[in-house]
Every structure is written in structure tokens, then in C-alpha cells.
């Protein structure tokens, strides 16, 4: 195996806009908001950035195609800008591009910026759109909640879990994320909820109720990256470096071959295994201090705890109920509120996750700050559907960890 990315690239600065229903802002306004924070945090001038990666997923709802919207919004000085789209992993994909550029030596300082402006559709939930000419003719009439909801029926069947037990663990996940989101001034949803509210909420897609689904938000997040040497030369101390960058993409096995039972993510298992190897982590449950995962739906977070090898297979329900993933638990998951409450502007989400881990490692997370600054953190994105998806796993940590 290749030597990997470990400790080759450091985060120089990060920024994140307020997420939410930003009725009075265009995508460009959100981009400038996150970028201004990151530039200030990095302590550099804009013209020191040599290349940029720009992520949006549903660009037809806001900025349109290409890298031009980023270059125009930030008035970038005719540098390379690459627009990337890989469903909900788009933000992590932009980060991957910028990090690889720095690691290769092609650029000393690079930018990854994601944005999504989803609240201009006229209705709640993700925009309903074509999945491609031929796909539209035979794919089932599915929505995001409807496809992820099926994890529940398959998981119950495989692990002989009752509907009630699963639903209750899912409710715990949502209550936990609302508690965390309430402490985050940039989060979209900031109201604590009760388990009873979750269980009695209107049904969206069996068995996912309203509170099992994440927020659909407007927002932007970004990262400026460079080499550890340049970061040090710029006066940065206690560097946070990239330990692993992995991506796994479905090849049709899940949707066409009967070897997959529908209860887990083949992609997450493949990507996380490679990521731990790249980062030199042997026991993830003990090594990882902080998790930011793709909790588009409560049930996704639940099965992801197993696919990341944090909870043993079939035992995530127990860990969730024991508070293992709560903000004061052993490995907090979604300490910033997660997609669930921070919100989910698709192209920005992967970068937003890194933003929280970056803040926590620097002791800058305000009311949410962990007692001991985390050493290793993991972010995880899923794009698409459980039976056909893109998964990214990124591990960052203190330099030398």
C-alpha cells in the first residue's frame, strides 16, 4: 500500500457560516462569510492561495456549474478552481483535492470551500430532481429518507432487534444531537427535544419520523491547508494535520448482488478500514476521541457506529443507550449537533464536520468544548442511498499523534 497522506498536510485555517434558513442571503454571501473567517484564522492574504476546490451538490438550485462561482464570489486572482460533486461527500471531496494538491507539491497553500443553498425550492426536504434519463425510468420512486429508512427493516431482521428497541435507540440519537445543537450558535436547529416528541412525531418514511431526519439548510464551510513546514513558518503552533483521506464508492454490488443484506454500508466498512490503516490506528474504539458522522437520519448514525468499527456489529444500540456517544461520553458523536441540528447544506457538510473537530482540538469550541482536547477525530460522509453510495472517511489529529 502507498505510504498515504499522514502528517503531510496541516490545516492552516477554517471557517463556517451560520447554517439555517438564510432567506436573505445568496450562496455567494455564505461563501464570503465562511471564507472571511478562514482567511483571518489562517493569517494569510488571499493571493497566497494557489489553488481551490469548490464543492456543491445541487448547483442548479443556486450557483450553477463550474468553479467560476467561487472565483467570482471571492475575486480569486485567476488561480485554478475545480468544482467537485460527489453527492453528500462533496465537501470532503473538495478537502481531498486541496490536501492532495499541497501534498504533491503542486500548491503550497490551497483552499477547499463548500456551499449549498437549499431553501429556495418552495418546500421542505431535499429538492426533488431527476436522477438521470434512464434511471428515472426504472429506479423506485424513492426519497432520501425512504432509502435510508430501509436500513431499519434490514437491521431488525439481521440482528433480531424489536422495532421498539431500535426506534428508541434512534430517538436517543436525535435527542442527543438536539442537546448538542442547542449549545452551538452556528447551528440551524437549537431547541432541545424529548424522546417522547421523537417517538410521536409525524411519519416521514417508515420507521423514520420527523425528528429522525436531519435539517435541510443553507450554509458554507471551508478549510485552508498547507504543509506543516509552511504552517510552522507562518508561526502556527500545535498543528492539526491530516492523518487519512479515504473514499469508497459503490460498484453495484449492493443494488444488484444478493451478497449484501441491506443492514449496513459496504462503502463505510471499506473506507474506514483503509483510513485506519493510513492513519496507523489499530483500535479505533480506543484511539478516536471525536466523531462527526453523516447522521442524515438517526438510523444512519446508528449503523455507522458499527461500520466505523467503534461499536461491535449488532451492539450499537447498547452503546447509544449507554451514552457512549453523548457529549460527555467516551467518544462523542455529533458534538456540534451534526447534520441533524447543525444542518446539512450538502456541499459544505464534510468541511463543517472538520471545522468542529478543528475547534475542539484547539480548545475553541465554547460551551461544547470537551474537558480534554481531543487528539484524533474522524469525519464521515455518505452520499446517495444505502444501496448505491459514496462514502468518505477523513481522520485528522494533533501533529505527531
Amino acid at each position, binding site marked *: 500500500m502507498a505510504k498515504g497522506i499522514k502528517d503531510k498536510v496541516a490545516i492552516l485555517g477554517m471557517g463556517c457560516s451560520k447554517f439555517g434558513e438564510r432567506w436573505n442571503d445568496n450562496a455567494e454571501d455564505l461563501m464570503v462569510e465562511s471564507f472571511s473567517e478562514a482567511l483571518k484564522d489562517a493569517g494569510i492574504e488571499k493571493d497566497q492561495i494557489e489553488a481551490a476546490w469548490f464543492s456543491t451538490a445541487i448547483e442548479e438550485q443556486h450557483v450553477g456549474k463550474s468553479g467560476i462561482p467561487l472565483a467570482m464570489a471571492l475575486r480569486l486572482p485567476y488561480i485554478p478552481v475545480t468544482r467537485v460533486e460527489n453527492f453528500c461527500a462533496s465537501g470532503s471531496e473538495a478537502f481531498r483535492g486541496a490536501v492532495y494538491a499541497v501534498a504533491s507539491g503542486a500548491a503550497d497553500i490551497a483552499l477547499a470551500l463548500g456551499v449549498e443553498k437549499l431553501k429556495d425550492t418552495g418546500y421542505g426536504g431535499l429538492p426533488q430532481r431527476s436522477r438521470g*434519463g434512464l434511471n428515472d*425510468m426504472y429506479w423506485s*420512486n424513492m426519497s432520501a429518507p*425512504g432509502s435510508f429508512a430501509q436500513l431499519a427493516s434490514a437491521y431488525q*431482521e439481521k440482528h433480531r432487534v424489536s422495532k421498539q428497541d431500535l426506534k428508541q435507540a434512534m430517538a436517543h440519537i436525535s435527542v442527543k444531537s438536539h442537546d448538542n445543537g442547542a449549545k452551538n450558535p452556528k447551528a440551524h436547529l437549537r431547541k432541545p427535544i424529548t424522546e417522547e416528541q421523537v417517538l410521536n412525531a409525524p411519519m416521514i418514511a417508515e420507521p423514520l419520523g420527523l425528528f429522525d431526519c436531519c435539517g435541510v439548510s443553507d450554509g458554507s464551510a471551508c478549510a485552508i491547508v498547507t504543509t506543516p513546514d509552511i504552517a510552522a513558518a507562518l508561526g502556527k503552533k500545535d498543528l492539526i494535520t491530516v492523518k487519512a483521506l479515504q473514499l469508497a464508492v459503490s460498484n453495484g454490488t449492493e443494488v*444488484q448482488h444478493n451478497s449484501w443484506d441491506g443492514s449496513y454500508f459496504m462503502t463505510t466498512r471499506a473506507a474506514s478500514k483503509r483510513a485506519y490503516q493510513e492513519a496507523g490506528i489499530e483500535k479505533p474504539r480506543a484511539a478516536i476521541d471525536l466523531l462527526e458522522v453523516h447522521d442524515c437520519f438517526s438510523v444512519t448514525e446508528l449503523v455507522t457506529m458499527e461500520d466505523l468499527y467503534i461499536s461491535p456489529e449488532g451492539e450499537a444500540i447498547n452503546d447509544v443507550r449507554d451514552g457512549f456517544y453523548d457529549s460527555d461520553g467516551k467518544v462523542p458523536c455529533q458534538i456540534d449537533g451534526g447534520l441533524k441540528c447543525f444542518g446539512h447544506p450538502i456541499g459544505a457538510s464534510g468541511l463543517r464536520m472538520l471545522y468542529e473537530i478543528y475547534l475542539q482540538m484547539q480548545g475553541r469550541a465554547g460551551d461544547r468544548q470537551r474537558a480534554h482536547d481531543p487528539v484524533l477525530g474522524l469525519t464521515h460522509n455518505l452520499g446517495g442511498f444505502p444501496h448505491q453510495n459514496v462514502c468518505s472517511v477523513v481522520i485528522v489529529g494533533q501533529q505527531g499523534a
Partner: protein
Amino acid sequence: MSVGIHAFGAYIPKARLQREVMARAYSWFNPSLASLGQGERAIANWDEDALTMAVEAARNALTPQQYKQIDGLYLASTSLPFQDRQNAGIAAEAMHLGNDLHTMDITGSQRAGTSALLTALQIAVGNRRNTLVIGGEKRQTKASSPLQLTSGDGGAALLVGPGKGVAALVGYATLSVDFVDHYRGQNQPFDYVWEERWVRDEGFLKIVPNAVRQALSNAKVAAAKIDHFCFPSPAKRVAGMLAKTLGISDSAVRDNLQGRTGEAGSIHALLMLTHALEEATPGQLILIAGFGQGCDALLFQTTEQLVTQRPMKDIKQLLSAGCPNENYHRYLAINDLVTIEQGLRAEVDKQTGLTTLYRNREMLLGLIGGRCETCDTLQYPKSNLCVNPDCGALNTQTDHSFSNMPCKVNSYTADRLTYSPDPPAYYGMVQFDQGGRAMLDFTDIFSDSELSVGQAMRLMFRVKDYDVARGFRRYFWKAVPIDNAFDNNGKP
């Protein structure tokens, strides 16, 4: 040279709307509807039309061997989805009958069903060809119209060819008379109907006897010998009056199914014929008449083959599989008879690329997937590289038809977010027992409790999407819980 019917089957959609509810809803406007407010009528689901019901009837009727004998396919209906795109051709693709086929739509009159059957029989006499006659009907009717209460949706199929089959043709006659009891003009959604007393006295009772007497005379059969008389009119007592006029025994007059399904328009005579064939014994005489701007009369005599050639599910079973429904508002909504707020999600453009459709027609309409010749893995859709992670061979897949394969639910949901004309949208991963799987829409689910992982399913040809802006509709296959559709008893 004998010709006859070699296979027969019907289809009746699962939901049965209670007429009492329909009559009560509009009694404020038309109190006389109360006289029709008994029994129930079959209503097609939102994703069914004349074409899909006809295909389902054919799948019910045919054995696997019989698919291979078909030389022609005639589709009869007055409610066909396309005015200019041959509907029978879509049915042929759905049943994967190949291109060496004479296909034709027969429409324009309430005797389209009997005319299609008669034409197929004449082709069998002249050309010794086997023709599959299928029909379906889903009439658009106005709220508060008697026609809405008396009509019913359904399909029928008959395989016709040389040889006596289960019932040999022993005589027929056909008359053309431009008697306009009702009509539906160009670009008009609804029928315009004249007074029923006139239709009965001058139409049914004068035109039908002429055709029947001619048919009996051609066959040299006395009216009193008829064992089953199928006359499809929903009008009360008309069949009995005709029998009396013609000298047919009153006991031969068959139930027009008005109390159970309603009249399936131009194919109701065929539906009644399949019912008669199911209940007849070998050697009996069955007379059917189709009325509409004239009359077709056909006389058949059943044979010993009737004992072995049966549809997978007979009408008795289809009737008992019905699901009583009192939601008249749902009926109005799914038939576009009331304007409902569908929400912004319904606005997604449904344009179909005709090049894409043509290139993939076997995959989409015929549900043809692939079988890897190297490792035997079945997969849908067919692709260049085998999906089996242990194989991955290139260009090894041959056509494999999935539509009749037994399958089970692997995972499922009931989705209230996505747009559906009849929410929630049910769908899930369906796994075929012999290999292969697909994430498919489910249909004909009438309560949540029916679904579970491992639930046995079968596939049905249905409307996938309506492109209202362009008048197009897409067809694809959907999964139905096997207990609730017709059970295929291990047969395809």
C-alpha cells in the same frame, strides 16, 4: 377446419368501491342514483390502465409454452392510453413476445372485445395463426353519472388458434348498425349518453336478436340448447328479456357481474366468456354477444381440454381477493375527477427520452436482465461487466427475463415525503429466489401490516409515471405481495 380458444384468463383490480358510498355522495344532486347504489365495482389503482390490466389478464391465462406459440396480438379497448402509438406493441414488449408478431389495437366501439375475438378466429381459419386477444377497460366517467356506478375496470385475455382448444367456434354472425346509444367525440373525456329506454327497446332488443339468430342458424343450433348466454349490458333484466325473445333457457343467462365488478366496457363480453369457460363443463354451448353500433354473436362448444387448461387464478378467486373500499374521494382523485393539491414535488419534469426508451425497451418494458455465462449470476439490469464480486467477467451476459420469477422483500419503507398520487409510496429491495435483485416500487398495498422482510412478492406491469404535460406515460414493473395479487401457484 376447427378453430377455438386455447387459453383464457381475466384480471380484476383489487379495490372494490362500494356503490352505496358513491350514490350517497351525489344523492343531493341525483336522487335516482340510489337505485344503482348496491354492490361494488372494481376500480383500477392509480398505476393501472387498460393496457396494464390486459397484460395482467394475459399473464394469468397463458402457460410458458403458449407464449412461444403466439403469432399475433390484438388489444381491444375504448380507453387505450395512446391514440397514436400502438398500444398492443407495448403489451407485446411487456410479455417479451418478440418482433415476428402481428399486433393491432381494436377500438372505437363497445363491441371492440368481441370484434377482436372474431377477427382472431377468422385469422385462425384463414391463416392457421395463433392470436392472443387481450383487452382492458378503464372508462372515464363523470361524477353523479349512472355510468360511473355501473362501470367497472378490468381485463381479459383469450388465446385463439387452429384446433378446437378448450372451446371450439361453432358459429357466428356480425351486424353493423349505426345505432348511437352513446358516443365519445374527438378530444372528449366522457361519454354522451341517450335515453336508456330507447337503447333497450330499439337497440338491445331489436339488433341483438338478429345477430344471434343468424349465428345460431349458421351453426345449426337451436336456441334452447344454449347452456351459457353471456350478454354484458348492466341494464337490469335485458339479458333475460333477450333470452326469452330468442328462446334461450332462462337458466342459461349468466350473471353479468354487475354486483361484483361492474361492466368493463368493450371487454366485458370477454370477461363474461372467461367466467363461463371456468364454470362450463365439456360439451356445453356458450353464446356471447357484443353490442355497439351493431352486434357480434359468437357460439362456442367446450371440449375435454377445459379440464386441464385453466387460468392461474379464476374469476371466483379474483372476486374473493377483492378489497372493499369506501374512499370515493380517493377514486375521484386518482381518476383526475377532482383537482387536488399535489404539492410542489409533483412538478418534477417527467419527459421521457424516446431514444433512451427505445435503446432500453427490453430492459424497461420486458424486465430483461442478464445472466452471466461464466458464473451463472443473474443481474438486473444487464451490464457489460458481471456484478458478482468473485467474477467480474466482461461481455458474458445473455438475456434473462425476470418478470415471472418468484421474489421476496429484503427491505422496505412507506414513504410520505416523495410524491405519489396515492401516498405513502411503498418500495424496497426485492430479491429473486434464483438470484438478482432490484429496488422496486410496490403497489396494491392496502395496509402497513402486510409488509415484512421475507414477504413473498410477484411482479406486475404498471404505469410508473404520468407525463401530464406531454400526454405520455412510462411503464415499468412493480412488486405486489403475493397473497394479495394472484398467487402464481409456482407457475410463471
